[in-house]
């Protein structure tokens, strides 16, 4: 059965990291450190979440001399609801034991 979009283990990890501080903007590198993900996995996911309307982005003003602006991220209102549901679903799946298969020829 195909998985719902944006409910991969990587997406769940990003949601968990972003839900820790929903009111704060987070840098990409900060999310990488929180999730242990590599940039090659994280950024395509952030792009997809942004395109789905679950993530909002902003450019921050430089916080020091010689520093450039940085892109920061946080969940939208819709994204926060979606993330909570996705995490709850993932947790429920993890605690549900797999259905046992009956051996062939076994009587019910």
């Amino acid at each position, binding site marked *: 059965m195909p998985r719902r979009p944006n409910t991969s283990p990587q997406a769940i990890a990003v949601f968990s990291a972003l839900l820790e501080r929903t009111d704060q903007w987070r*840098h*990409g*590198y900060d999310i*990488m450190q929180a999730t242990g993900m*590599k*940039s*090659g*996995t*994280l*950024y*395509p996911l*952030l*792009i997809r979440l942004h395109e789905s309307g679950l993530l909002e*982005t902003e450019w921050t003003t430089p916080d020091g001399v010689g*520093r*450039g*602006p*940085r*892109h920061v991220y946080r969940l939208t209102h819709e994204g926060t609801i979606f993330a909570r549901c996705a995490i709850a679903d993932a947790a429920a799946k993890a605690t549900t034991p797999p259905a046992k298969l009956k051996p062939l020829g076994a009587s019910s």
Partner: protein
Amino acid sequence: MNGMNRRAIANAVAGRFAGLMPAKYADWALAMESECKAIRNPDEANRFAFGGLWTCFKQRSCEMEFRLKIGHYGLIGGQMLLAAFAIVGAVGNWAVHQPTAFVYVALSFAFGICGLVGLLRGTRAMFFSAGTLFFASLIALATVNTPWALGQGWVNMPLYRALAIEGVVIWATLAVVAAALLTWSYRETASR
């Protein structure tokens, strides 16, 4: 390699993001570049930069135009590879049986020229050259099965027949793939 060199590599790689990323994700390319520059540890910055490069490639590979290019150059590369294999066959047969070596040389030329035509003139020209060589292979296959050819007493007749069949299959495949690339390309152009 010292930290400054590693940092320079990371910055150089990050500087390529904007050119590699599809135009609609230009903002994301800038975002990754600025993030990479903000990372203090040069090793971390390097890892980030190469991951960013992979992101650009991933996003680019979602575009039909890029896939068509990959298909086009894949066809050319495949033909060049077949030309090289034919040259190896020619070299291997040179001392044993020269006519067979000449057949391999001719095959190598055919693959090489078809590939070059694709490289210089595009997919459409490659479709026509593959189509022409497909019909040439059909004629060759028919010829090796004629009573005249069978009466010539060629020692490598089964090999010539196999090469003719191989030519029919390979050039038919190339022509079909080139036609598919052309069709997708037209559809892509029409949808814009």
